[in-house]
């Protein structure tokens, strides 16, 4: 069977270094998340209490079920807050290292810009821009390959959704100029 073997080697030149310093520990994030959840539970709980969390003649009021869920959520996040504060183990765990955060941001920021671009330029233009620039700038792939891949993928999506399946996507000035 070894005659059909083909070796596959993929390198990752921009991989995050292993010895990169930690940005923050799991404990800090856990505390922050617990606090946010507690605030959310209080806000939603207040809204449900306002909507009516008691009983009337027809049965439970609209806020009844979610109000008690807010109580449960609030209680659990309060417990989580205390547990995270006291946890030595979590304090020692790295949430994310600086090198990792840089890589995550390298995906997150373009995704955020893509969502913004979708709002104003339409989805297809935005996806062409995202794929080509991401491949070129983050992946360091040759410009012609990036542009070609982005164009082929975007065109395939357009044909699949807009033409074949009639699923309408957000569109912008370019599509308007082309009369679609």
């Amino acid at each position, binding site marked *: 069977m070894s005659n059909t073997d083909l*070796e596959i080697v993929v390198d990752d030149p921009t991989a995050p270094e292993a010895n990169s310093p930690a940005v923050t520990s799991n404990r800090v994030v856990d505390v922050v998340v617990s606090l946010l959840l507690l605030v959310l539970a209080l806000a*939603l709980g207040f809204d449900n209490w306002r909507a009516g969390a008691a009983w009337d003649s027809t049965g439970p009021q609209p806020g009844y079920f979610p109000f008690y869920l807010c109580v449960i959520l609030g209680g*659990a996040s309060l417990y989580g807050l205390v547990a995270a504060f006291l946890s030595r183990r979590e304090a020692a765990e790295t949430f994310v290292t600086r090198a990792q955060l840089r890589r995550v941001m390298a995906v997150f920021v373009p*995704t955020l810009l893509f969502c913004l671009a979708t709002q104003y330029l339409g989805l297809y233009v935005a996806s062409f821009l995202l794929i080509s620039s*991401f491949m070129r700038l983050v992946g360091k792939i040759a410009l012609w390959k990036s542009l070609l891949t982005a164009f082929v993928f975007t065109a395939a999506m357009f044909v699949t959704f807009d033409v074949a399946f009639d699923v309408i996507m957000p569109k912008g000035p370019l599509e308007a100029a082309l009369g679609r």
Partner: protein
Amino acid sequence: MEAFGLLMHGFAVLLTWKTLALMMVGLVLGIFVGVLPGLGGPNGVAILLPLTFTMDPTSAIVMLSCIYWGALFGGAITSILFNIPGEAWSVATTFDGYPMAQQGKAAEALTAAFTSSFIGSLVAVLLITFLAPMISSFALKFGPPEFFAVYLLTFCSFVGLGREAKHKTVISMSLGLLLAGVGMDTVSGQLRMTFGSNELLRGINFLVAVIGLFGISEILLTMEERLALRGHAAGISLRVVLKVWKDLPKYWVTLLRSSFIGCWLGITPGGAIAASFMGYNLAKRFSKDPDSFGKGRIEGVFAPETAAHASGTSALLPMLALGIPGSGTAAILLGGLMVWGLNPGPLLFVEHKDFVWGLIASMYLGNVVGLVLVLTTVPVFASILRVPFAAVAPMIVVSCAIGAYAIQNAMFDIWLMLGFGIVGYVFKKIGIPLAPFTLALVLGNRAEDAFRLSMIGSGGDMKVFWANGLVGSITTLAIVLLFWPVIDKAVGSVGRLWRPAKASG
């Protein structure tokens, strides 16, 4: 034998060229997402779901379930050839699969993995075929209190039996239930938790949340890892396949045991991950030669793969019969059913016979076609890994955005998806499980309706949940499971008190 006749009818529904072509497309897409780093079963199904919106429900569910089978098969390829488990339930497969590949027995390991996946799924599908109609006809007698008790049982067993910190499971679940309630209240028509926002009026769509939680967050997580890999892509010859199959009867105990474990853990929300490890550990414990495990023993591939697939498949049983998904992926399929206007639950077997039996028949057919497909095309799929992640990642982002937008034609949903992406990333890193959240979000409205209807029926008396033997025992079981860790500990310490006394006496 009524089930058999209906199943045959299901095959008749399926055996059209169009459906078979869709199955192939689904399987190929599924293997594709299973092989790609950072994608897998739930993510793949969530991202590809919008493709099916314009199809009729039967074609759509056939394609989706084939994506699911494909992803399950695909996960095994990367674990064996590259020691990269595509999914958490493939981790146990790497223990013996990767050593086998290093010894030049990659083809045997892959054949073993695919074959045992096939066997595991088949056992689970047989179980579904005969058990699901029985359970659903039983469940037709359920009223709101019984349904609420079953929902409660599902939620409680997640908290009690889950391996994560209890308060984190509770957080995840209550958050999911709360977000399910955002928007218009279905009973009174009053607005809840919208804070005056028009966008929140529609509520938070389950699929938008899932695409963000599983798709976007998975890409962020993948980028943290070192994405380099090295390995051999082996072709599988017919000779090797036949050799492994000839040895198969020798391992019937392992296969049977793993199938059983998988089915059990799949129906209860224990999940495929626990099943694969349990299958592996039990095979090791009962082996005459436990030390040879981890060094490339074929049984070490059979055991976890059979269990994982039996569990992944049988998770669909409670979804079909009761409308309660047994896994994250089943929850997403359930969300799909609702998009097509089908109401999951026992009535499905009565009102949409064609659909249900078409789906069950597609499980049989999808597994057979999938087995043949993966055995013949492994080298092609293994070379997908050569495609740089920098090209794959933005395409996944675009697919996610298309998916999120297509559900309700709302730009707001794309932003919501991005938000859920961040939430999913942070939650996964600090150990808040996402499966209970998904489950709660999809079941939230129905659980609340069941609760309110039973409260209205009983005039606000909680005793309605113990009104008869059936509902009483489900509710009691739910509460026992909720406090299971405490009970388990108590029983354990009582046991410890007993044993020394016996030893000294």
